[in-house]
């Protein structure tokens, strides 16, 4: 069985303002594969499912083709559809309990298609239905109950039994696990997996991104009726390419996700097509993107532009105007003019020495726009050096730096001010990073003055007040006139954060930015930063000793040891299941555990792993050879270690090129 959807468009008529539910969808469902369809509500997921069943309401119009084994099924009449329904394409609808007729017993409803469609005898059909229900874990006495007498999980399993009773070749599941407990969810997932093994194809419509990622083979991301990205399922959280996929993943409280929930900026819109004269032109059909509370006149979006553009944090002028088509990026297909999420900063083989001390050994680092990267590690491991090189403040001895794909060193030489305006820096020691001769107003306004972007006095003043209010400092005249020595350390640190953010940078490099804040203020400042990440796509490099903090805010974590990035990867993996023994030790120590676990000032081995003298797992090789790169989870999680702590059931690859690039090939 193969189902090909080609250029499918579905609109709902509504008094001239037609709702565009699906827009030129191309999707192929293959035999024995599970395709997950994810996206916000209103993106047209359910409409797609219902279109395949021929169950669109009367006020809908559809065009395009849907081919089931080369037979067109779109536009078939009721009789033709009844041939296909349930025997070839079956659907598990959303809101399960409402899908059963309250007046008939479960078993009769499950048996009904057999009786009516296959002309089976009533007793035989009931027998088969009973068996099917039993396979779903429903006992006989439950099977003969009425729908309202069963629990949600039992209803869901009955629904699956009913959908599978005619052994369909395509099973559409609309939110099959919503409102189910974890056990039932796992059971349902197993059932779906068995359907795949039997050779049927499955279309899984779900909000449950964990399920989509674990269960499905491919994922298609739908936004406002268009497919924005298709990808292999495993990459949903690890390597989203479209900004929408990334934002969607950040909004989902996955089981393994450690960081706080982000979101997608702006409101979920819907699209309508209608006809009315534009100024000076004749009437024409065009799209609108309509959000709650807006007049559609404000939102004339030309059909050419990117749909996600109003909510995208990396959109530029082209996104508003140019036509966006699907492009292939690796295994992904992405509908993004900028080729997916862009890299904000790229460090290629940067290193730094202070005399004999290697502060930073040759290091690669790519940060994508809107990413929060936390650098953790013991003191003296080169965290601050790395951060300051990334911020452009410190010159590396070797290596290349790119900011928004432009060579940072050249940019720095040409026009330092415009580069500095895009990078905000919070230095490690707040009291030393402000001039004691300047008042609070002058400190915070200084970047604006230097870069000449503050406007007149009044505007500068207003922006300073706003910046101070954002970091929960008073913004009265009296406070603005104060000098640093009149403030406590926490207040000075917040002044520093306000100063870093006032030029609205796209990269914030912060070295221990909240070390002097009390927990309540720290929480508020972090919330502000996370909000800036969601709303403006602020990219952050956070240097911190606080593993707990890193857990809460980081998308990715890098672990530094003696000038090397020894482990790097998504925060849930690095902090959840660390590979390097050093990372484990860091995490353990962060919990406030003592007990002779930690040795300080161990003499590092020459040429071997710097952690070897302290490592309980170390053997001879660790002392004399450079540890190899170990990559896990599709090479998004890597560590430099001979004895990585890989749990038994995970396989790992050695010496494969790592995408995250902690130790590059250039530094041998």
């Amino acid at each position, binding site marked *: 069985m193969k189902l090909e959807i080609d250029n499918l468009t579905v609109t709902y008529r509504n008094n001239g303002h037609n709702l565009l539910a699906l827009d030129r969808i191309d999707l192929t469902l293959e035999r024995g594969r599970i395709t997950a369809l994810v996206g916000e509500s209103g993106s047209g997921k359910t409409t797609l499912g219902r279109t395949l*069943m021929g*169950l669109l309401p*009367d006020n809908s119009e559809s065009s395009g083709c849907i081919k089931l084994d080369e037979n067109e099924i779109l536009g078939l009449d*009721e009789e033709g*559809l*009844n*041939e*296909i*329904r*349930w*025997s070839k394409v*079956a*659907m598990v*609808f959303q*809101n399960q309990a*409402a*899908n*059963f*007729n*309250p*007046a*008939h017993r479960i078993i009769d409803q499950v048996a*009904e*298609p057999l009786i*009516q*469609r296959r002309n089976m005898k009533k007793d035989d059909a009931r027998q088969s239905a009973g068996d099917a229900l039993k396979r779903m874990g429903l006992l006989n006495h439950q099977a003969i109950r*009425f729908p*309202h*007498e069963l629990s949600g999980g039992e209803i869901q399993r009955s629904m699956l039994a*009913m959908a599978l009773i005619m052994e369909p070749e395509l099973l559409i599941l609309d939110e099959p696990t919503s409102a189910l407990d974890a056990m039932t969810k796992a059971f349902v997932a197993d059932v779906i997996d068995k359907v795949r093994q039997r050779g049927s194809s499955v279309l899984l419509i779900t909000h449950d991104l964990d399920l989509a990622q674990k269960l499905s083979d491919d994922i298609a991301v739908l936004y406002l009726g268009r497919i924005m990205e298709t990808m292999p399922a495993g990459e949903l959280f690890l390597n989203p390419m479209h900004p929408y996929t990334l934002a969607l993943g950040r909004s989902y409280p996955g089981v393994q996700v450690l960081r706080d929930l982000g979101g997608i900026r702006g409101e979920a819109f819907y699209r309508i097509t209608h006809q009315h004269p534009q100024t000076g032109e004749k009437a024409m059909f065009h799209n609108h993107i309509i959000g709650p509370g807006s007049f559609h006149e404000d939102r004339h979006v030309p059909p050419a532009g990117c749909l996600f553009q109003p909510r995208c944090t990396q959109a530029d002028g082209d996104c508003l105007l140019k036509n966006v088509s699907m492009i292939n990026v690796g295994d992904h297909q992405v509908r993004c003019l900028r080729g997916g999420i862009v890299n904000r900063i790229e460090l290629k083989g940067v290193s730094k020495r202070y005399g004999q001390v290697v502060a930073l050994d040759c290091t690669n680092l790519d940060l994508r726009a809107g990413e929060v990267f936390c650098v953790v590690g013991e003191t003296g491991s080169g965290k601050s050096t790395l951060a300051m090189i990334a911020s452009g403040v410190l010159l590396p001895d070797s290596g290349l730096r790119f900011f928004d794909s432009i060579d940072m060193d050249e940019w720095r030489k040409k026009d330092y001010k415009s580069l500095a305006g895009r990078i905000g820096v919070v230095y490690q020691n707040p009291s030393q990073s402000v001039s004691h001769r300047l008042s609070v107003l002058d400190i915070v306004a200084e970047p604006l003055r230097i870069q000449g972007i503050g406007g007149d006095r009044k505007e500068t003043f207003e922006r300073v007040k706003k910046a101070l209010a954002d970091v929960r400092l008073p913004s009265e005249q009296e406070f603005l006139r104060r000098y640093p020595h009149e403030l406590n350390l926490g207040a000075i640190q917040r002044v520093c954060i306000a100063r870093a953010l006032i030029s609205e940078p796209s990269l914030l490099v912060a070295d221990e930015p909240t070390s002097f804040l009390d927990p309540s203020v720290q929480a508020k400042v972090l919330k502000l930063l996370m909000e800036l990440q969601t709303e403006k796509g602020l990219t952050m490099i956070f240097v911190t000793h606080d593993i707990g903090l890193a857990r809460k805010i980081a998308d990715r974590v890098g672990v530094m040891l003696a000038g090397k990035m020894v482990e790097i990867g998504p925060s849930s993996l690095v902090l959840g299941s660390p590979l390097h023994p050093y990372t484990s030790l860091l995490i353990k120590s962060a919990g406030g555990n003592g007990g002779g676990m930690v040795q300080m000032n161990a003499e590092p081995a020459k040429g071997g792993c710097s952690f070897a003298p302290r490592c309980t797992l170390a053997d001879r090789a660790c002392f004399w050879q450079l540890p190899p790169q170990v990559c896990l989870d599709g090479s998004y999680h890597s560590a430099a270690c001979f004895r990585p702590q890989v749990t038994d059931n995970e396989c790992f690859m050695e010496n494969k090129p790592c995408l995250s690039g902690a130790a590059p090939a250039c530094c041998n």
Partner: protein
Amino acid sequence: MKDGHYIKLTAVYFFAGLVMVYASYSLPKWLPGDFVTAMYYGSNVTLTAEQEAQIRACYPCQEGFSRYLLNLLSLKWGYSYAFLTPVSDLILEALPWTLLLFGGAHGASMLFGFIAGVEAAWRRGGWVEKAGVGCMTIMEGVPEMCTGVALLMLFALWLGWFPSSGAETAYSIYSAIERIWDMTHHLALPFTTLFLAYLPGNFLLTRGSMVMVLKEQFVQTARAKGLPPSRVRYAHAARNALLPMFTRFGLRIAFMVTGAVVVETIFSYPGMGTLLYKAIGLRDLSLIQGIVLISSLMVLFVNLAMEILYGIIDPRIRNAYKLPA
């Protein structure tokens, strides 16, 4: 459902029945006047108080409630002074006619209204449905008295196709088939009156609830299962639109006797309504008591039957009786 529930239900209904018996015994006594005043009401004779008392003395006065109750249990329903016949005979004679007329009209209007309502809702938005709803709404506004009088004048008095009164031709000797034809012939006009009176309600009610049910998801599921359209319509949708209609049927049946008064009087149909009308006119106390009792017991019985049938029609109601422990 547990047996305990039925026992409780029966006990409640038995008690309610007792109250009904007392009410039907005592309430008619409140009527002003008695059969003596009623007897001479229309004539020129004016009785003195003394004469009235003498006449009244000829008839034994009605005994107390306990006696009445005992008599009821031994199936002695009293004696009608006006008709000089036992009350039970009168009622047994009239009841079948009413049941025939009303049961028939109700049954037919329900069946027809239901099917028409289901089909109309299925074709929602089409001209058949719109025309149907329009006509039925107008018909619903016409009281049965008007329809009855109009039919009587047109078909009985003017065209003369149907007899204007009675349930069968008096003093005739017919074979069984001829008799049935004769009864049908007499039944036609009152039956049509009632059918037309009840049909619009049944139609509109069914259509209304059907329209709601058709929006339910399980109807969509039934369609998705590729079932034949008639199966989707009746086994799934209509099955769940049945309840309001059934409730209406129950209510109407319960008030059969009182509802019968108008139509039966117009067509002089010898049913319970006519009998009640006459009995009240003649202040025939025992007969009134008997009819009221029959009618109130009927209400109780229908209620009980509905309560049990509800659970069969909608299984969810069955569980509503289960109180949390």
